[in-house]
Each structure stands twice: as C-alpha cells, then as structure tokens.
C-alpha cells in the first residue's frame, strides 16, 4: 500500500515538473526576444503600408500692371499684388504589393476639395499590368503628372494649364509596366477612358481616350538619366447648341456639318523628353514637351471645359510647347531655372488677322492670341522639407491692331516668391 502511494506521489510530481520544465525551455530569453521582435516587425510592416504626405505653398505675387496678369489663376481686377496659398495638399495612401488606395485633398483659403481619389489593382503573377479607377492624373505628357510640389517653375506651362485644367480626370486606365525588378521596367504603356471634364462629375455619352508610351532609362554608371514619351488624346466635346464655328480665312463661320447632340473633335498628339546628367557644375536637367491638335472651346478662350458646355463651340487648331533647364550648383542648396513656354491657341490665324470683323461671321478674339513666356528662377532647398522659390515670368503676347487692348504687349509679367513645406 505504501509503495503504491509512493508511486502515485512520484507520478504526480513528475506530471507537475514536466510542464514546468517544458515552459522553461519555451520561455528562454532568446525565444521571448525573438517572438517580441517578430510581433514588432509585423506591426511595423502593417504601419508601413499606410502613408500620409502633404505640402503647402504660401506665396506672394507681384504683377507689373493692375488686373492683367495670369499666373496660376488670373489676378483679380484692381490689384497687382496678391498673397495666396497656391496649393495645400493632404494625401492618404494605403499600399500592399498588389493594391493601392489614394485619397488626396486640396485645402487652401479658398476651401476644401478633392484632388485625387483612386484605386490601383495589380496582377498577382507578374505585377506588370494594373488597373486604375477613380479621379487621377491624365496620362498625357510629362508635366501633367509631375508633382506640383516638385515643379521647379511655380506653374505648369500655359498650354498644360489651358488644356488639362486641374490635371486630373475621372475614368479608368490600364498600365503595363514591368515590376521594379524586371528588365522591362523602363517601358511604360498607359491607356484609358475618361469623362473629359476634369474632376467635375459631368458625364457625356462619348468618353475620351488618352494613351501614352514612355521610356525611362539611366546609363550604367548612373551619371545620365533620360526619357522620352509619346501621348495621344482622342475625345470630343458635346455640342449643346446648333452653332459650332470653324475658322475660314481667318474668321469664324458656322460649320453646317455640326449639330446639337453631336461631338466636336478634341484631339491632341504630344511628345516629351527628359534628360539629367551629372557634371562638375552639379546636376543638369533639361525637359521639354510639344503638342498640337484640335480644341473645341468658347469664343473668348481656348481652355478646356470643366463641365458640359451650354453655349456655342469654337473649333481651333492649337500648338503648345515648353523647354526647361534646371541647374543645381554643386556643393550648395541652390538651383537655377530657365523656362520657355509657348501656347498658340489658334495656329491658323496670327497678328493683325486676329479681331478682323466681317458681316455674317464671328471675329477671332483674345482667345486666339498666342502667348510666349520666359521664366527665370532660383530655388533654395532649406532642407528636405522646406523650399524657397523666387521666379520671374516675362510674358509676351501676340499683337493685333484689330483687337482692342492687344495693339501692344500687355504688361503682365509676374514675380512669384513662394515658400513650400512638404512632408
């Protein structure tokens, strides 16, 4: 009996000690530390998917006359100076290997608005094909999609502002580009269908196609980087009246082939190129774009619509181009900028033809005047977050003795002093 009790006692003791010992083995400091690190790593990986970024551009602008100038928006009548929060952006992004969500808002003294709101889904096999849907940058040219926080000139070229107001549009797009590790990562093909009215939810039956092919490469020694692209826009603007005007011998006449309910052709072809190289001076970057095409708009302006039109349409042949040189000064935080941009909203009429009147026809207007701008600027990068830009735009317009107010060059040069904070 005593032996049985002893055996039971020993068995109970063993059963108690064994789990305790097992727990001691599982709970060694190294194991505990390893488990804690793994937990932390998982948490960090999850947090790294979510990013909040933003920037604010506060600026002062001075024009050389009252009420005439245009620089990121026309100067109000009666003033040649203004303070402005040119851009205030807050961007939320969530990224996984195969998906992206982005919501970007515009917050300035003028109010609160949506800038981008889109999702991206990538193919799970090669991460080469992706579908983007929502409100996002039109895939045309280079400057449209170039971040406003990185722009070396305060504003995009005049033709970019006129033809792609706000940069964004509502639509769907497919992108084909090799994954970052792919040998083909340098080639990107994008194409999609958009409403054509910018971020405003104004629908029309005909959707606009925008497509682009671009390459981006660096030399083996990483001293040179270059890229080129070709873009195509094929769409239309809804004719809501019976009157659509085309240019004939320098004057607008009604196009009998057009009618309310039809679509007036909106079509552009563009090319762009970029080049960066390192030298003893510092980093030199040269970029340029050229575009021509057909633009339906209103009598007084060649700007693209941001809603379906309510009046007569005027069809123009347009041309726009810019070239920009950015030179960083080695060993300093300074960059010098030189930019030339030209926008001809009507290539079929020039000089004194503009404004000529004829009975039964509509004269060309200020909307047909060609502008060229030379910009000279200096950028000082205070640190990774703060940048100061001083920039002077010398604006020259086409002159016509037959158009009131355009007999000579307008006094519309603008000096911009801008401080940007980016995070």
């Amino acid at each position, binding site marked *: 009996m005593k032996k049985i009790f002893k055996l039971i006692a020993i068995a109970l003791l063993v059963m108690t000690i064994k789990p305790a010992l097992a727990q001691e083995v599982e709970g060694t400091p190294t194991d505990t530390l390893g488990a804690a690190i793994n937990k932390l790593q998982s948490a960090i990986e999850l947090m790294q998917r979510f990013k909040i970024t933003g920037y604010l551009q506060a600026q002062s602008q001075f024009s050389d006359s009252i009420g005439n100038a245009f620089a990121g928006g026309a100067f109000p009548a009666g003033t040649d100076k203004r303070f402005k929060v040119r851009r205030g952006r807050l961007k939320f992004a969530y990224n996984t290997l195969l998906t992206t969500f982005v919501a970007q808002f515009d917050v300035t003294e003028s109010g609160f608005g949506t800038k981008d709101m889109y999702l991206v889904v990538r193919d799970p096999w090669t991460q080469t094909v992706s579908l983007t849907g929502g409100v996002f940058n039109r895939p045309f040219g280079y400057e449209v999609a170039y971040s406003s926080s990185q722009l070396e000139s305060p504003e995009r070229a005049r033709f970019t502002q006129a033809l792609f107001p706000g940069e964004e549009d509502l639509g769907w797009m497919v992108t084909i580009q090799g994954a970052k590790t792919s040998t083909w990562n340098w080639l990107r093909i994008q194409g999609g269908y958009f409403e054509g009215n910018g971020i405003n939810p104004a629908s029309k039956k005909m959707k606009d196609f925008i497509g682009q092919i671009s390459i981006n490469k660096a030399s083996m020694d990483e001293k040179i980087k270059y890229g080129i692209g070709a873009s195509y826009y094929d769409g239309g603007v809804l004719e809501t009246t019976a009157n659509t005007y085309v240019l004939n011998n320098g004057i607008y006449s009604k196009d009998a082939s057009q009618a309310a309910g039809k679509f007036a052709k909106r079509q552009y072809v563009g090319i762009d190129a970029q080049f960066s190289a390192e030298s003893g001076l510092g980093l030199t970057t040269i970029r340029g774009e050229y575009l021509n095409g057909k633009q339906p708009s209103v009598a007084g302006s060649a700007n693209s619509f941001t809603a379906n039109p309510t009046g007569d349409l005027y069809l123009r042949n347009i041309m726009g181009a810019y070239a920009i040189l950015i030179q960083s000064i*080695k060993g300093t935080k300074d960059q010098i900028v030189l930019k030339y941009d030209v926008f001809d909203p009507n290539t079929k009429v020039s000089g004194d033809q503009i404004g000529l009147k004829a009975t039964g026809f509509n004269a060309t207007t200020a909307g047909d005047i060609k502008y060229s701008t030379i910009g000279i600027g200096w950028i000082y990068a205070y*640190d*990774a977050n703060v940048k100061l830009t001083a920039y002077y735009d010398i604006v020259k317009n086409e002159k016509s003795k037959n158009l009131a107010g355009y007999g000579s060059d307008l006094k519309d040069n603008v000096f911009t002093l801008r401080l940007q904070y980016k995070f």
Partner: protein
Amino acid sequence: MKKTLLLMISLVVLAGGSYAQKLKGSDTMLPLSQKEAETFMKEGRGNVTVTGGGSGVGFTALIDGTTEIAQASRAIKMDEKLKLTEAGISYKEVIAAYDALAMVVNPSNSINELTREQLEGIYTGKIKNWKEVGGANLQIVVYTRETSSGTYEFVKTSVLKNKNFASSALSMPATGAIIQSVSQTKGAIGYVGLAYVNKEVKALKVSYDKGKNFIAPSIATAMNKTYPITRPLYYYYNTKVTKKVMPYINYVLSPEGQQIVLKVGYVPLSK
C-alpha cells in the same frame, strides 16, 4: 569642491561625446563597419551606431536626414542624386574598402566551380538541376537578397548582365540569412560578401572567360584582380556634417583602419 568640479567636467565631456553618429545601409558592410566602430569607440574617439537594411535603405535615410553616413555596396543611383539635390543635400563619396563576392553552395554539393554563363543560367532559372552543370541529380534552390540590397543590384549587373532573377528565387532579408539557408539546404546556391563565408558553406571558383580560368574568391585574388566579382564599398555622407564624420572616416582609411578591413575579410584599399 575639487571632486564636484571634476564630476561636472566629466558629465559635460560625456554629454558632448554621447551623441552617436549614425551609419546605415549595406548589409555587406555591416561586419566591417561594426568592427571599425567598435575599435574607434574603444580608443575613445567617439560614438558610432551601425545598422543594416540594405544599400537602398541607407540612401533613403541619407535623403531623409536620419543618418549621417550611408554605407553602400553599390554606387549611388541617378534618382537618388536627384532626390538629394531636391532636399538640398550635398554629399561626398568615399571608397572604404573592396569586397569579393562569393558564390556559395551547400558543403555537400559536389560542384566546385562554375562559369559566369552557368551562374547566369542558374540564377535566371534556365538551369534548374545540378546535373545540368555536372553535379548530382538535385533541384537547384536559388537564394537571393531583397531588391533594396546593393549586393542584389551588383550581382544582377555583373553576373546576370541585367537579366531578371528567376521568379522562384527565394528572397532573403540579410546576408546571414543566406548563409543559414544555404548551409541547411542541399541544393542551395546563394551569394555573399567574402567576409561572411564560413565553414557552413562552400565558396565556388568562378570563371569569367568561359571556363579557361577558374579563380577562388580570396583577399589575395581580389587584391591582384584575378577574381572577377569584386566591387568597391562606399560611404556617402552629408557634407553638412563633415566635421562630425571625418574622424571616423579618416580612421577607416588609416593604416590601422585598413588592417581591420583585412582582418574582417574585406579587401583593403592598398597593401
């Protein structure tokens, strides 16, 4: 009074010297930088903290301002130069040492040498079995580094001639992980800096002249330039902190620092 004064002076000195300069980036350079930093600090020359993550991570930290020195096993890219310029950061590049990159297999593997073309075939997935290169009938398991690694970029350029790694290649976050995986997997192959090679793996002889000459990776063959897979190891620093980082960098470049380079298994700048 004297004791209080001495204590106050010591506290001031300690406070002044307690701010560590940070090195971040290349995993390949970790053993070197850690040893250099250790000796530098032992001699009372200052405080240094060293972390890895890959060359790409180091450059990002330099751009963000979260490190004073980025250590890299590849040269800085154009995109990174543009980002540094945008951030107003001037930088200087210093070559600290050279590294021979070893192709390593499991010690049980009968293969002792491979040509560059064979290595390219293996890493791109065209060659899938060791018997195709004269070894045993055993599936090849490829281990590679993550894309943020300078070593990954160097192998892709030098060995693969810019072709892609096989999609079946297993990506490892650190050099140590490659050593561990290769040592535990019979059919495995991977690549590591010479300083990481140990008895748990076998380093292969490599030929870059289609099999005429096979050279084993060693400090001697790297120094006499017969071993074909060698590359410089860099320090990049923000010129704004030149005064702060130069004591450490000058130490690494000094004869004493270069002796440490040799001891740890890297190739010094000169004999």
